[in-house]
């Protein structure tokens, strides 16, 4: 497991790079825009702290670089030299997986129609349906999850949860510090 403190440091370092972009245009934006910008920069910083090793981070970066709203700026600033390499990887992987998804979805629909459930298998099929439903939800939560199969989905979820926690810790400490400063 990667050392959590180094992950946080990485994240903070990269996030600061992103926040600098924010600050320059801080006066002109509304609160919600600012919030979005901050969140976006945090997400990209978190994803880049993973250095392209995990699938969700690549998916996040790919979607961010296509985004109109400062996404590209953040990606360029935060990733720096790695920018072109990582964006190439991310977008190419996404394109490949899109096709696979189309194939997969058409196949499963057909199969379900033809299935006749005998009585004794009803319980297990219900359980399977429940699991499938939740798997779908989880896929929608994890960035880039729709492209993954179940096995890698679980691994990615693991990594994603860890990264989210690190991100939350850093953001919380920053928020606490600034609010503390404000109160004085």
């Amino acid at each position, binding site marked *: 497991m990667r050392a959590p403190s180094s992950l946080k440091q990485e994240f903070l370092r990269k996030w600061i790079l992103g926040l600098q972009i924010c600050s320059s245009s801080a006066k002109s934006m509304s609160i919600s825009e600012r919030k979005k910008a901050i969140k976006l920069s945090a997400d990209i910083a978190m994803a880049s702290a993973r250095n392209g090793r995990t699938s969700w981070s690549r998916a996040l970066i790919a979607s961010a670089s296509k985004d109109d709203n400062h996404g590209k700026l953040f990606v360029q600033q935060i990733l720096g030299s790695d920018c072109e390499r990582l964006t190439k990887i991310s977008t190419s992987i996404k394109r490949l997986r899109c096709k696979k998804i189309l194939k997969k979805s058409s196949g499963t629909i057909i*199969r379900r129609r033809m299935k006749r459930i005998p009585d004794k298998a009803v319980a297990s099929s219900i359980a399977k349906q429940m699991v499938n439903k939740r798997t779908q939800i989880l896929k929608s939560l994890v960035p880039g999850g729709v492209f993954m199969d179940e096995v890698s989905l679980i691994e990615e979820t693991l990594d994603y949860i860890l990264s989210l926690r690190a991100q939350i810790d850093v953001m919380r400490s920053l928020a606490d510090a600034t609010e503390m400063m404000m109160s004085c």
Partner: protein
Amino acid sequence: MEPTEHRSSAIGPSLDQNALDSLQFNEEIQHLMTLPPENANSFTALLELPAPQAVELLHHHHHRSPESNCSTAKLVTAKADGHGLHHPHATPHHFNPGANLTFPSDISLIERAVRFSVFAGINNSDNNHNDNNNNNHKISSKIDKNNNNNNCSPETTGSVPSNSSGNLGKVKNEPAESDSDNNNPNSPQPLDIKTENQNQKSAKRKEREKKGKAATKKSKSGANDSSEDAEKLPYVHVRARRGQATDSHSLAERARREKINARMKLLQELVPGCNKISGTALVLDEIINHVQSLQRQVEFLSMRLAAVNPRIDFNLDSLFVAESGSLIDSSFPGMVMPVMWPELQAHGNRQQYQQQWHHFDGHHQPLLGGAEESHNFVTPENSLLSYDSSANSATLHTNQLKMEL
């Protein structure tokens, strides 16, 4: 990667191993085919009927050629060609156990034929996987009566070696990774009445298996509970447990499920409160809730920062940037230490603090969540983490003070 030639020669080097195996298959099939006529007509009758249909299926593959099936079908035909068959159509009509393998030597066809015949015989309403296994049991018991023992060498697939005798033959295991490579998680679940689809899949999987992706299979064998293997084949050998089907599909499924279960356990340990829950769906529920709550927290925190923002100058960040150069080599505490902290000095815990910082850096265990969340396990990391956040805030605070002065 998939050859487009029909000739086995073009595929030669990659199929050398397969050729060897298929030669061994030849012998086994000859065994199979010579024995039944001595005994009742059952097996022959079983085989005779589906044989033309099996080859019909094969030909059907060949013509329909969906993307992933195409190559496999071609491989099968290539194999058939390689074994002296000129035209797959001609063979079924001359089903003659005495002849030297007019039937395609591919074991997958045999298995398909057997399974097909059983499906034809048994009520078609039972198309569950369990029934499939039961059928295979019946087949295996029948064949055992014919063969009188485990006649087949270890390469034979699941329908032939007997399960009940306890002497479980080594069964080729289809790599679960090939399933995942196929990106089709539904494929191991046989949901159809139509055996055709199943047969397609079985052919597909057998072919993939025979291509012998040694790398993936070797890595997979580490993850499987595998039996001892006398012969070094590039397949993963999994010992089927007593009372379970030795069908290669179910084995692959089982291996895949075990993989998934292992990872689910990791997730369960990570997500607080999941340890006591049993059942995949509920655990997934918890995981989903946890991820959603984490994402919501990120939203809230970014909102807090956005609200605070306009009143703070981001000189703070420039200060960090200036110090980030020192950050690269040293760790966080290294950056923190040269800064004078009125608060920490007031606490008077500085020495202890530094120690804990070093201690904290030495920890390489996963994060255990923020201090607010209630955890079942209180570990030293938790307290160190709270120190971490307070240290962060203290650092920033004093930096701000420095700036403003």
